């Protein structure tokens, strides 16, 4: 048992990579290389911001269209169907009235 085993780690310290307990030069070098190959990004890029906002607006418009177009088409179809039914009813009643008026008086 190592002398350090008796020392309890304070809360939160477990997260630290405890280099004083175990050091591995190969690991250190590998991780150092990993960290040094970090990408850096410029602070400002108005083109990127503009592109995202444009795409967001296009998407919003497309979503809005994809919602309203079926609603509109359904509405038009329903209106046309209703119109056709009303026309048929009117035509039927007109025809009945016409037939009634053309019948000879004794058959009425």
């Amino acid at each position: 048992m190592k002398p350090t085993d008796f020392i309890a780690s304070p809360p939160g310290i477990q997260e630290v990579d405890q280099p004083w307990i175990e050091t591995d030069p190969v690991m250190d070098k590998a991780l150092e290389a990993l960290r040094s190959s970090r990408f850096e990004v410029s602070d400002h890029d108005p083109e990127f911001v503009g592109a995202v906002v444009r795409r967001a607006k296009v998407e919003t418009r497309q979503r809005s269209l994809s919602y309203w177009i079926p609603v509109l088409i359904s509405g038009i179809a329903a209106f046309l169907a209703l119109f056709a039914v009303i026309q048929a009813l009117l035509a039927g009643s007109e025809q009945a009235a016409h037939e009634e008026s053309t019948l000879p008086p004794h058959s009425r």
Partner: protein
Amino acid sequence: MGSVNSWAERQEALVEETAWVERCRTGDEGAMNAIVAKHRKRLIRVASNVLRDSHEAEDVAQDAFLKAFRELGKLRDDKAFSGYLYRICVRLCMDRLRSRKPEVGLMDDGVHVPCGKVETRVLIERLLDELTPELRMTLVLREMEQLSYDEVADVMRVPVGTVRSRLHTARERFRVIWLRATEEQEVTL
């Protein structure tokens, strides 16, 4: 006093961002601009470090913003927007990594141990390709993005214990492949 000030500043920034998110729900262009400008750098950086491709990283970052705006309705607490956006970006990066074809026989075609910065990047990119997406993401978030274990767990939606074990495995594997690459270089020389 300084910490009080920085705490106050953070709270102010949070309130400001919450207001932007609220305005984004109504399609406010200015608010979208502000949010994208604020988070762009961090998102592109993490995606670049994970994917090792700055162009692909920009695409992923754009997709992350669009997805976040599109699914704002799913966000219950506007104050959590920043973490929500980061999680989306990480998830998209994971999807990209998973869809990549694994490169087999990496060491067979000769890996050169780096002399310069560009070579280091190339080597790291090839070594990271040998890790699974989960191990790679954990290693990058911890070692390059310097996130705490709790933050990594939150971003990746896994328990902290899983993060610890993945990080341990990832470091060990990375060490092994690094060592192999170094030894091969010594043999070549």
